[in-house]
């Protein structure tokens, strides 16, 4: 399996889109491209399993190392391990359903789908990069399309949100950048040459003083992407102003870039600092979890509810990473995958509701279960997954995080774990409140009675995501087996 296909295919799709003459053609191309992406992702998954079961224990599979900027030791080095495969799967799921929910996009549709597909290139590239430069490159590639998607196709105070998101993510990249620079110039192999190569750096010993300086840069930088408190404020505004597909991508994948980076770059390459700073990470992530949950409780707009809940849920990712036990890191990655699917589903459902009722305010909605049973059921399922119901992915991931966190016997860490656990109660409060007053209860506006249920494309979009959620929720072991060995490698360093 050549990983480059995952970059080439979206690129071809993106440019093929521009040749389309009308919405029908364009969306078919986008859909076909996204479907092929998903096929590729599955091929990758099976090829990966095949290799692993054949006894290939190399840390990275399907490696490909091309020299890119030779004088600066920059290589286009790609390869995947279990975590990458999981994240690539996630991306393909979210992209496909994001294309589907945008089926009726009629405004500047070419550009819209182009940007959407373009975003996926960034995500795939990021997850397969084994070179820090490449990783950074793909991290930043996605910032501008997000800005455009929100600013042009968004709603509400879209310009403000788009700008805020772009600036804060750029700030994140800027910090990451400083971190990478520091990392690079503190690496030295036997010949004294610096390196950007993830696997090579992992073999080297970065001086502890350097780690102590640059770990915060890298971690906070990536943390901004994944809504690290107090740098999370782009999340609510950005998500709520974005068009549905962009919200799905933002919350589903983009926030995961941060978590992945925190793990793959910050923690993996600078383990000493990670241990030294873990209490701060835990403190911040616990605040994010609890405070995000309480802030969610007060929101009145469905998208804000989901956005703030993302802050809270992504706190689990950082908590898991901060706890630095094998299980907690496994849990963190599972939470990334799970939250990606779940929140995308949530945004998809909200988008479907919004496109029909033209409001997202909880108070103005009600009784939708009667009018649009499918969409409402999707909404309820997303909600239940969000509050961590067994059978859905959220439960598995959160429990793994809790179980892993508890293995850390320090009292402070225990307290943080308890607080994190407590957030699932608050989650239940706001989710049930949202579910209770939107899809249940009496119909608030009689115009709603005339609304239609989901079209086939919306159903397909939702089913794809639900399938992913349930596949993890019912059979978590396959995901666990993908991730746990990598978590062990990361900690062993």
């Amino acid at each position: 399996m050549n990983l480059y296909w995952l970059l080439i295919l979206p690129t071809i799709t993106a440019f093929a889109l521009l040749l389309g003459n009308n919405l029908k053609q364009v969306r078919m191309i986008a859909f076909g491209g996204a479907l092929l992406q998903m096929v590729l992702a599955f091929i990758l998954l099976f090829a990966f399993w095949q290799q692993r079961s054949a006894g290939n224990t190399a840390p990275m599979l399907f490696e490909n190392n091309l020299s890119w900027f030779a004088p600066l030791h920059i290589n286009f080095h790609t390869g995947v391990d279990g975590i990458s495969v999981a994240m690539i799967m996630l991306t393909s799921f979210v992209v496909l359903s994001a294309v589907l929910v945008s089926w009726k996009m009629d405004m500047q549709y070419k550009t819209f789908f182009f940007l959407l597909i373009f975003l996926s290139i960034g995500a795939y590239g990021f997850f397969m990069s084994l070179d820090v430069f490449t990783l950074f490159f793909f991290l930043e590639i996605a910032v501008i399309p997000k800005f455009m998607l929100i600013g042009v196709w968004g709603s509400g105070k879209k310009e403000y949100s788009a700008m805020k998101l772009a600036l804060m993510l750029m700030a994140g990249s800027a910090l990451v950048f400083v971190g990478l620079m520091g990392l690079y110039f503190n690496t030295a192999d036997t010949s004294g040459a610096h390196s950007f190569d993830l696997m090579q750096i992992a073999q080297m010993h970065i001086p502890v003083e350097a780690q102590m300086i640059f770990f915060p840069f890298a971690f906070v930088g990536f943390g901004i992407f994944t809504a690290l408190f107090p740098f999370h404020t782009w999340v609510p505004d950005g998500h709520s102003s974005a068009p549905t597909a962009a919200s799905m991508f933002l919350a589903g994948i983009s926030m995961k870039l941060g978590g992945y980076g925190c793990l793959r770059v910050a923690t993996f390459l600078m383990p000493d600092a990670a241990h030294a700073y873990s209490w701060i990470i835990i403190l911040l992530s616990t605040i994010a979890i609890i405070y995000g949950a309480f802030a969610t409780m007060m929101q009145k707009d469905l998208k804000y509810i989901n956005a703030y809940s993302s802050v809270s849920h992504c706190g689990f990712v950082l908590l898991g990473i901060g706890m630095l036990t094998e299980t907690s890191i496994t849990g963190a990655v599972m939470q990334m995958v799970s939250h990606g699917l779940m929140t995308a589903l949530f945004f998809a459902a909200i988008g479907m509701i919004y496109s029909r009722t033209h409001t997202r305010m909880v108070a103005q909605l009600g009784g939708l279960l009667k009018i649009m049973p499918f969409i409402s059921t999707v909404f309820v399922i997303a909600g239940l997954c969000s509050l961590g119901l067994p059978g859905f992915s959220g439960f598995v991931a959160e429990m793994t995080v809790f179980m892993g966190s508890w293995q850390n016997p320090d009292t402070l860490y225990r307290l943080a774990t308890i607080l994190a656990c407590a957030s699932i109660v608050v989650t239940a409060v706001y989710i049930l409140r949202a579910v209770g007053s939107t899809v249940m209860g009496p119909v608030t506006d009689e115009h709603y009675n005339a609304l239609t249920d989901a079209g086939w494309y919306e159903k397909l979009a939702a089913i794809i995501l639900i399938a992913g959620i349930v596949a993890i929720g019912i059979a978590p072991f396959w995901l666990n087996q993908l991730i746990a060995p990598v978590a062990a490698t990361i900690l062993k360093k």
Partner: protein
Amino acid sequence: MLNDFFILMKFELLPAVIFFVLLFIKVGTAELSNASIIRLANILLFINLVAGFFYNKDGGMFGDMFHTNALIVLQKSILNLGIFIVSLQAEAWLRTHKHVIEFYLLLLSSLMGMFFMISGANLLMFYLGLELATIPLAALANFDLEKRKSSEAAMKLIMSSAFSSGLLLFGISLMYGTTGTLGFAQLPALLNGSNLQVFAFVLLFAGFAFKISVVPFHLWTADVYEGAPVPVTSFLSVVSKGAFIFVFASVLYTVFKPLADTWYHMLFLLSVLTMVIGNLFALRQQNIKRMLAFSSIAQMGFILIGISGSSQAGTASAVYFVLVYVFTNLAAFGVVALVSAQTGKEDITDYKGFHATNPVLAWVLAIALFSLAGVPPTAGFFGKFFLIMAGAAKQNYWLITIAALNMIVSLYYYLNLVKALFMDANASPVPKITFGVYAKLAIVICIAGMVLSGLASVVYEYIYNLSTGF
């Protein structure tokens, strides 16, 4: 020997030949239309550009006052490319202008001056090139003869540059007084760091800093950019600056190598100042040219960081960035030039809703802005990354952090313009701009350059291999 003369001085001779061809047309009896003059000039400039790639040779002449090598050839080619694109873009403005040939004459003499300056291996040669490059520019800045702003810009440029060359000369004279030589080859050995010499060096340094708009020597920049005709502004901001950066880097690295500690500190301080002040001013600009002027000031700050790295990567990154900057800034100015030539609108608010009427130009401008902001996959990202990386080799992470923070600020005003282009509504947007084959060609070159010169690593590697180390 004579053969060598033609080959070594090919870059200087070709513009001279074109200069004279155009001059003869001017003084001749045949009345050529603007269109045909422009076509001719562009063809000649294209030949000039292409010819630069063949038959090159390293070597020196005139008792080592003039020297050339592969890197210098490359630098000159970059400038040739820049002037070719500028000329393509100027078509929209020149089409109806009364003094087309004069424009090209001044442009070519300035270019020649830059080439001599780049090849100069002697303070005298350098100074002559510098003046030859500058004085025509002042005249060019006034090329919209009837516009108040154009005259004011030209006046500010000539006054400032006269003052700056006065200081530069004073510095050169002191340098001469303390070392007794003007040759670049002899100078390093004679530098001893005495206070007078340092003062002389600072004066020289300031002369350069003035030309590449480093804070606090930058103040002319915005006014001149705003007032001058757009093609002249783009020439100033790209070609002229590029030339001075090339010289600046090589002079610092070779001639003033003994004073490296001194100028490292200066570069540190000035790069920070330049980035910060440039960005802060850019934030609040209403005129798009003025905004781009301050943004180009901020970009210079990044270049100083790269140069401060004092390594082969430092030179390479600076040269590479200039190449990228040629494509990027000219793409931006190209669109501004088209709009300005056809509607006279230059304010950012005029660009609101631009995408609705001119989607292609809006995207070109947007991509150029992304590249200026340093966002991948545009070449600007690679350019900035490599510059800062070169600077980071000194392990001065304060500088790197400040640079990184400045990238955020700069992103704000670039995106603000993008926002105006794509997201803001406007009751009377800029009407549909028609653009001819020249502008199209320029756009294609710029876009291709912005994409390819970054992703295709051969470009950087080629430059790196040519660059001299420290």
